[in-house]
């Protein structure tokens, strides 16, 4: 579904991604993790053709992305950006309707089907009550939900999320990820850039760790989410334990001063 091979790209002279090869199959839900500046956001921008590759390829649904028009790409991939910078005072409903732009034809306005799709997306994200509020007057978390609704209104087979729940409280975070899991079970392919390791381990069956613009780790969560791997990627001592209810691996961070080095655990170096 999504395939990159030896993908290199960056901004100006600064190369951010240094040879990324990934294959994400249809119906996967993958979490992309890694320290700041490792290239997570750039990867998502490269997958949607916003940042052009300097070498290597990006293929979506078998088609090379640089050959396709933006509105074709927008019918394949919806994106939820990290910071939705929305300055003009659009109604939240108008913003969600913008997700229907790739389906518009000619000079007309949004069709009744577009309106239905937008309202369905708002119902799914439980944001209908925001429909006639101004996007620049709702809270940061509410705006994030509205942008997620816009991405769902795009009705694409692939959804990319960049820190999409960072401004949400715990309950809303889980609600959004429950919804995303459900979409995933129905066949949607999801790639979520996340900082919250534990949320990623709870919801994503596959994790991809980036570091210094390269893939550091890639595999099923239960195989790679362990003390050694996490500590190495983040250069910090991290212990992994089982989630008391689901059994998924969960990370526990050890404050630097409290690091008890015992046999079998990680020593310095």
């Amino acid at each position, binding site marked *: 579904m999504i395939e990159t091979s030896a993908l290199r790209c960056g901004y100006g002279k600064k190369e951010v991604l240094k040879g990324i090869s990934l294959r994400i199959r249809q119906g996967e839900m993958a979490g992309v993790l890694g320290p700041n500046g490792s290239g997570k956001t750039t990867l998502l921008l490269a997958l949607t053709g916003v940042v052009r590759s300097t070498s290597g390829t990006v293929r979506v649904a078998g088609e090379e992305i640089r050959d396709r028009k933006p509105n074709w790409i927008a019918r394949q991939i919806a994106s939820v*950006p990290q910071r939705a910078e929305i300055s*003009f005072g659009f109604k939240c409903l108008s913003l969600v309707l*913008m997700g229907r732009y790739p389906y518009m034809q000619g000079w007309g306005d949004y069709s009744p089907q577009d309106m239905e799709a937008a*309202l369905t997306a708002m*119902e799914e994200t439980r944001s209908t009550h925001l429909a006639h509020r101004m996007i620049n007057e709702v809270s940061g978390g509410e705006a994030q939900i509205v942008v997620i609704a816009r991405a769902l209104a795009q009705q694409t087979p692939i959804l990319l999320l960049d820190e999409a729940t960072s401004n949400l409280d715990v309950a809303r975070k889980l609600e959004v990820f429950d919804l995303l899991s459900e979409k995933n079970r129905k066949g949607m392919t999801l790639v979520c850039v996340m900082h919250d390791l534990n949320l990623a381990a709870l919801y994503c069956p596959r994790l991809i760790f980036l570091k210094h613009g390269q893939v550091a780790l890639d595999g099923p969560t239960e195989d790679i989410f362990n003390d050694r791997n996490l500590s190495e990627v983040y250069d910090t001592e991290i212990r992994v334990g089982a989630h008391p209810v689901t059994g998924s691996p969960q990370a526990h961070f050890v404050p630097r001063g409290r690091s008890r080095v015992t046999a079998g655990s990680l020593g310095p170096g």
Partner: protein
Amino acid sequence: MEKMTIDHTGREQIKARESRFRRRFHLALSGMVVAILISVFLAATYGRFDLSAAEVLRAIMAGLGLRSESATDSTSTVVVFHIRLSRIFLSSLVGLALAVAGVAFQGILRNPLADPFTLGVSTGAAFGASMAIFFGLGAEATLGIGLLPLASLAGAVTALVTVIALARVDGQLRRDSMVLAGIVVATFLAALISLLKSLDEESVSSIVFWVMGSFQGRGWSHVGFALPYTLVGLILVGAHAHELDLLTLGDTQARQLGVDVNRVRMRILLGASLLTAAAVSVSGVIGFVGLIVPHLVRITIGPEHRRLLVLSGLLGMILLTWSDVVARTALPAGEELPVGVVTALLGGPFFCLLLKSKKELRSLD
């Protein structure tokens, strides 16, 4: 099951509210159209030559060929139809063009202070036109369409490109530096226009005309002159109303939502420059219309560009029609004010208010 029903009523309520908004927009639209028709008629009753409303109506009918004129009517027909009405049409056309160009510039540059005047685009257009006249190309025409607007367009585009290049800091367009760059470019070009004028008294007509803008002595030929360019500009901008909405989200989001950002932006900038050029080539530099009108409309109906473009265009027509009425009747003894003076007197304080209104600016950061 119960949740489903609640959701469904929510959906119907939202749709009902949307159609209420649509009805209200159509009401505003028809209100504006009626206001324009009344404006045209009322504006035609003002002037040096004292005519009653009935005489004006008769003269308009005669001018349109709907009524045969008697000998006594012919003077009033000339005054009303050929002098006043042509000016009213021209000021409407210019008001429409400048207001729509203002909406386009503000949307695409995500800058509430942008308008053809503050960006230096108008002065660029005036400079282009002055150059053409200076080199004796002012009267040239191809296929009956004057070339002056093309020279204006070249000036407008050059000024715009310069301003954008000056205002770009680390690849980011900054709002304050853009207006600053606009002022620098406009002042510089105004000085060049003065220079051209002093080099050749004969060919470059009144400098006040180019720098302050006026409809004095303009007629139907000027309407015909600016009309084709204005129409092309309106189509270029109007066809991309939805894209203007998406572009306010920034390039990245617009592209991820399917907008071919670079191509669309080029077309809209070209359209807005064409509108400015067409307006300036027949009326000189008229400031602030493209600033006041879009803001008043945006405050009332919100930022969606389809509606914003239509209502701003219509309000621009009304505003400039009446500004011109003031310009030609304010002074005693038949003297005329440049209409640019009237709009600047209205627009200057408005611009300051806008600059001061923290809420509006903060929301655009």
